[in-house]
């Protein structure tokens, strides 16, 4: 018999970005709220303090800030015929663990998807006809438009504290910003950062080649900043330890710098750490949730936490897993295409070309997670899908993200990978290179999905979740096209040597090298209950008191890093709960 806690109005599963957003917005309504967090509590000091936190071996290589596979992992297969095996060593993607979630260890790239990405299927149908969509590609329109979300993007920009320069301000295109972005109602709350040498060099080349360079929008403070909750950030010092680390300097947008201390002041909010939610409990008729059952690490027992509203705000993979083990939504069957939960899992395609210059010094120890000059000239709304032979888009960018020596030793192709020759290569090339990289969209496909593994279980005896994913020709063709575009920069900049790291035609998904923690889909939004798990307000179809936040809502992945959309959707959901749901709890669609 599980222990039972006193009933709350709201239980929040996972205290990262979306858990914190939902927490503070609903706390303002006076609701009694408890947040359950699997990991430890984390603060700028002492958990992220200098210099202990910027230990690349411990955190960058051994992932001590991340979810450990012994806690939770997935099994992976590339197609329906393979037997999935557990992801036992963290590589391709890095879910977090602890208060603040992945919001503590991200790089700070903060984007809004393009307008066309919200209605992608109709955009393609209207421009080229649906026949250009491959038969197994399951893309759809989002049930919410950019215009509907715009105020919530702006709200998230202000809360997170984003540095940048608007390229499209209320429809007016501004030199120096991204001319291809969707219109913004307000400029970024902080000015853009200065460029490092690589980033400036890329920008000059881009201008010369006729493109439209701009500074990456950064969840990294360029000045001191106070957000609408009164929370504060200090200006970044370009130490280069963002991704995989908590920021010791109050400079990176995170739940810690943007929300948590303000949230903890609400007497009607509390949170428990080392509390891993095992399942969402359903009412007898299955039409609502009654609360959640979690494992209390301290007492080593299961605890039932009753609540009127359940907010699922754990990492995308964990959210989908929790739905599958709780029986929320009909599980998706990739063989038949039936069901919804686990459908449309997608990812991000990335690659890079490194240019080496013998006589130029790049000071690669200077940078920050979102330090880059970017061009969006090959973005979704610039590409002629019909002529190019793929559906998608990507931005190209250059700029040092990290000054971390262990993992930042690029060498020209053909240099030895170990031993004396490798050392000699490092001596010759360290600090003499810049990288131009791609960051591209990934569409949804019938077989790309998440379901429960038939063989492997987690430490609580629950089946692991199984991921079925591989690269498709559509994305690989796009990457080949982008690699060709980068070659124009290579020709223009005339480096002494080059190393190309792009996925080639026929490439298969490899979980070992890090690619991105942009896992999306699985509890996608939809216009109708039969095509997705949640409605436009992130409310679960058929279980109106369960709301699911995060990138699991993405119908297909966008060409951008997900956090901007994740934040906007959370504010959109919070607003709907506050203005429509609380007064009359019911399905909002």
């Amino acid at each position, binding site marked *: 018999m599980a222990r039972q806690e006193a009933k709350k109005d709201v239980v929040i599963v996972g205290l990262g970005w979306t858990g914190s957003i939902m927490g503070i917005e609903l706390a303002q309504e006076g609701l009694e709220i408890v947040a359950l967090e699997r990991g430890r509590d984390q*603060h*700028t*000091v*002492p958990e992220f*303090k*200098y*210099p202990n936190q910027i230990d690349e071996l411990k955190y960058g290589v051994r992932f001590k800030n991340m979810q450990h596979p012994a806690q939770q992992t997935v099994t992976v297969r590339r197609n329906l015929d393979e037997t999935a095996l557990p992801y036992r060593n963290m590589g391709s993607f890095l879910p977090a663990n602890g208060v603040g979630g992945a919001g503590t260890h991200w790089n700070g790239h903060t984007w809004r998807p393009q307008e066309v990405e919200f209605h992608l299927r109709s955009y393609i149908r209207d421009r080229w006809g649906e026949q250009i969509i491959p038969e197994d590609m399951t893309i759809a329109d989002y049930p919410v438009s950019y215009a509907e979300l715009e105020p919530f993007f702006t709200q998230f920009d*202000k809360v997170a504290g984003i540095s940048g320069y608007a390229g499209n301000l209320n429809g007016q295109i501004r030199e120096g910003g991204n001319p291809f972005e969707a219109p913004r109602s307000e400029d970024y*709350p*902080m*000015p853009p950062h200065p460029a490092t040498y690589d980033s400036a060099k890329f920008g000059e080349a881009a201008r010369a080649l006729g493109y439209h360079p701009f500074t990456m929008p950064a969840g990294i403070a*360029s*000045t*001191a*900043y*106070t*957000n*609408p*909750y*009164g*929370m*504060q*950030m*200090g*200006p970044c*010092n370009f*130490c280069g330890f963002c991704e995989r680390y908590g920021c*010791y*300097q*109050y400079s990176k947008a995170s739940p810690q*710098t943007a929300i948590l*201390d*303000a949230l903890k*002041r609400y007497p009607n909010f509390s949170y428990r750490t080392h509390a891993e939610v095992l399942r969402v409990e359903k009412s007898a008729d299955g039409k609502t949730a009654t609360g959640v059952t979690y494992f209390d690490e301290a007492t080593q027992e299961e605890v039932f936490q009753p609540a009127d509203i359940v907010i699922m705000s754990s990492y995308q993979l964990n959210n989908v897993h929790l739905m599958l083990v709780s029986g929320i939504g009909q599980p998706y069957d990739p063989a038949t295409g039936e069901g919804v939960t686990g459908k449309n899992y997608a990812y991000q395609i990335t690659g890079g070309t490194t240019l080496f210059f013998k006589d130029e010094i790049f000071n690669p120890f200077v940078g920050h997670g979102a330090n880059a000059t970017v061009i969006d000239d090959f973005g979704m709304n610039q590409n002629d899908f019909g002529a190019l032979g793929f559906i998608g888009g990507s931005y190209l960018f250059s700029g040092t993200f990290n000054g971390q020596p262990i993992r930042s030793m690029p060498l020209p192709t053909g240099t030895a990978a170990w031993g004396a020759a490798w050392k000699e290569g490092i001596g010759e090339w360290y600090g003499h290179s810049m990288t131009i990289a791609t960051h591209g969209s990934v569409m949804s496909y019938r077989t790309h999905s998440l379901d429960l593994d038939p063989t492997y279980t987690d430490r609580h005896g629950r089946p692991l979740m199984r991921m079925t994913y591989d690269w498709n020709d559509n994305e690989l063709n796009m990457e080949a096209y982008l690699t060709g575009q980068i070659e124009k920069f290579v020709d223009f900049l005339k480096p002494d040597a080059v190393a190309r790291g792009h996925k080639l035609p026929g490439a298969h998904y490899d979980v070992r090298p890090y690619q991105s923690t942009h896992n999306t889909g699985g509890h996608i939004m939809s216009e109708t209950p039969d095509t997705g798990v949640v409605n436009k307000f992130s409310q679960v179809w058929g279980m109106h008191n369960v709301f699911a936040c995060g990138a699991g809502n993405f119908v297909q992945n966008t060409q951008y890093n997900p956090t901007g959309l994740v934040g906007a959707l959370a504010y959109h959901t919070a607003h709907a709960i506050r203005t429509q749901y609380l007064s009359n709890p019911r399905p909002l669609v």
Partner: protein
Amino acid sequence: MVTFLRILGGLVILGVLALLAFLFVPVQRTAPTAQLPADWTPAPGQGEYVAIASDCVACHTAPDGQPFAGGRAIVSPMGTIWSTNITADKETGIGNWTLDDFRAAMVDGVTPDGTHLYPAMPYENYRLMTEEDIRALYDYLMHELPAVHAAAPKTELTFPFNLRFGIRAWNWLALSHGAGFKPEGRSELEDRGQYLVEGPAHCAACHSPRTRFMSQDGILATDRSFLTGGVIDGWNAPALRGPESAPQKWTLDELATYLATGRNAHSTANGEMGLVVEHSLQYLTDRDNLAIAAFLKGIDGAAVEVPETFAAITGAQPPAEADAAGAETERLLTEASPDMPLGARLYLDNCSACHFVTGKGAPGIFPELQANELVTGSETKPLISIILNGAEVQGTQKRPMNLVMQGYADRLTDGDVAELANFLRTAWGNDAAPVTSADVAKVRAEGVH
């Protein structure tokens, strides 16, 4: 000879009589400064607000203790003074006190049995409070606040400080000013500020110097030494007036922001002032914090312009550039020559990321080190302690973030800390006397508290 002996004898008798009178004739209680109608009652919340503005909690609530139940140790040079239970409990608190008894404690520093309070209780300042506020506070303590049965430890100082009648003589010196508030009449808001500063908030208790008898030198706005700076428990309480006063250089908005949030574009409230913000000032109305700021800005006669609000959400706030006084240090740090002094190098490696080569920090979050009295003060323990142990500025309603600076005790030796402190005390035009490794060792040995 006989005459001389007679005179001497007479003097001895007179002296003995005077001493007996001094010891046994009861102290005259000061009369109320206003006659309120018998049915006068405070406005709802008034008494609690007076308790907050007077920062009673600072002494009368022990760490993790029941509110106002006393038992907090106040360390003084004479020994430990234990704060008393001021809840309405009849045995251990003040439940048997009449309003006149209570007023006598606030105004004259005596308890109902005639015992003199130690002047850790700032009756030098509280005696300026209005009769309305004293009554509202009494009403709150007697009728609103839950009574707590808890005997606070008895204060037992060593000889001669255990002889409380000595305080009677001290009071003749310290209480030369009459009871009740006399506004200067500058403006309604500044008068309100003057009242709070002089009376309940008892700012002079720390920010005025002390006479050689340890009474406050400067209690009223009209006193020359009023708020010209003092020392409290090893912390410099900066001058709040005069050309050398750092807070006087802040805008009125910045001053009010500091009071309400413990931080502003220049500085943070640490140590004793941090506690004042935490327990008292953050809970004052915006108007009262503006009033205090307006009074202080106008204290030397300047005209003040009062903004509508303060600490409004301001979004981006770029850090300040170095000024002329800081230019040379900025150049030294920017050039970062390998042969620069150790203190400067330690600053670059450990401090400059937040406080910058300009020493100007970043507005609202990382305090200025240039012309910061915590850095340059006569009292060096706070600076050393913050380098070693870090510091925390508690979140407040307007600025909820707990701003924590980490400590460097595990990273810097005593010698390093001394070098670093001495760099800070002479950088950007700062000009303060050096500290030694021995000073650092002493602070390190004391640990965090």
